[in-house]
């Protein structure tokens, strides 16, 4: 990869933010799902991201900068969230105490994640566009002579 390496970085960023968005959407969709006592309930998920930074012996060029910047890598893990308990003995999923367990999804937090992820996704799209625009202009060098 050469001058195109910078596109990979933005693409990876988009992947991560898209994953964040999808995960938040999934959590929100399952907010009000309960499970019968004894069966596994939905566990809220969260995205953990880290930058994978390769080690270098020496620098070669811009593509190394792109890679050294760390391609963001994301994994989906289960969040450590206590279930939301609603007392409703009439519910078919109520346990012996009449409690129904719902996933511990924080609605506000998930909505905030959606907004942030969307904004960050768009920023990555902007970065991709800027890189493409710069490359186009570089190709026009000398085009007037």
């Amino acid at each position, binding site marked *: 990869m050469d001058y195109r390496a910078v596109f990979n970085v933005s693409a990876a960023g988009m992947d991560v933010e898209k994953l964040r968005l999808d995960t938040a959407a999934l959590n929100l969709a399952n907010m009000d799902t309960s499970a019968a006592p004894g069966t596994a309930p939905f566990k809220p998920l969260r995205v953990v991201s880290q930058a994978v930074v390769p080690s270098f012996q020496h620098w070669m060029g811009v593509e190394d900068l792109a890679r050294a910047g760390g391609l963001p890598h994301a994994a989906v893990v289960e969040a450590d969230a206590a279930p939301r308990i609603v007392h409703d003995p009439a519910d078919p999923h109520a346990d012996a105490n009449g409690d129904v367990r719902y996933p511990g999804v924080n609605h506000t937090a998930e909505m905030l994640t959606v907004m942030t992820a969307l904004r960050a996704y768009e920023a990555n799209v902007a970065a991709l566009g800027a890189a493409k625009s710069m490359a186009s202009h570089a190709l026009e060098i000398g085009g007037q*002579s």
Partner: protein
Amino acid sequence: MNDFILPTAPIDATGDAAGVQAQAAAAPGGNFAAWFDHQLGALDTQMASAEKGVQQLAAGDAASLHDVMIRMEEAKLAFHLAVQVRSRLLDAYQEVMRMQV
């Protein structure tokens, strides 16, 4: 603070252009034939550099597009210059030949 210094392309036409510049400044009063010879050599180097840039681009090794484009433009202008000089020389020769003795 960690500082990473990314080198620019180590070998390019710029170094030779510096030589061309020096030679061009020395041309008046100097040996024209030697100067023109040097120009053709510099042209050769620049065209080879441009071709290498294109090869690197095709092979996916071009570090930057602007570097390739600049090398090509430099080669193009150097070639243009050589052609112009040749044309003028030819014109001058023909004009001399047309003179009535």
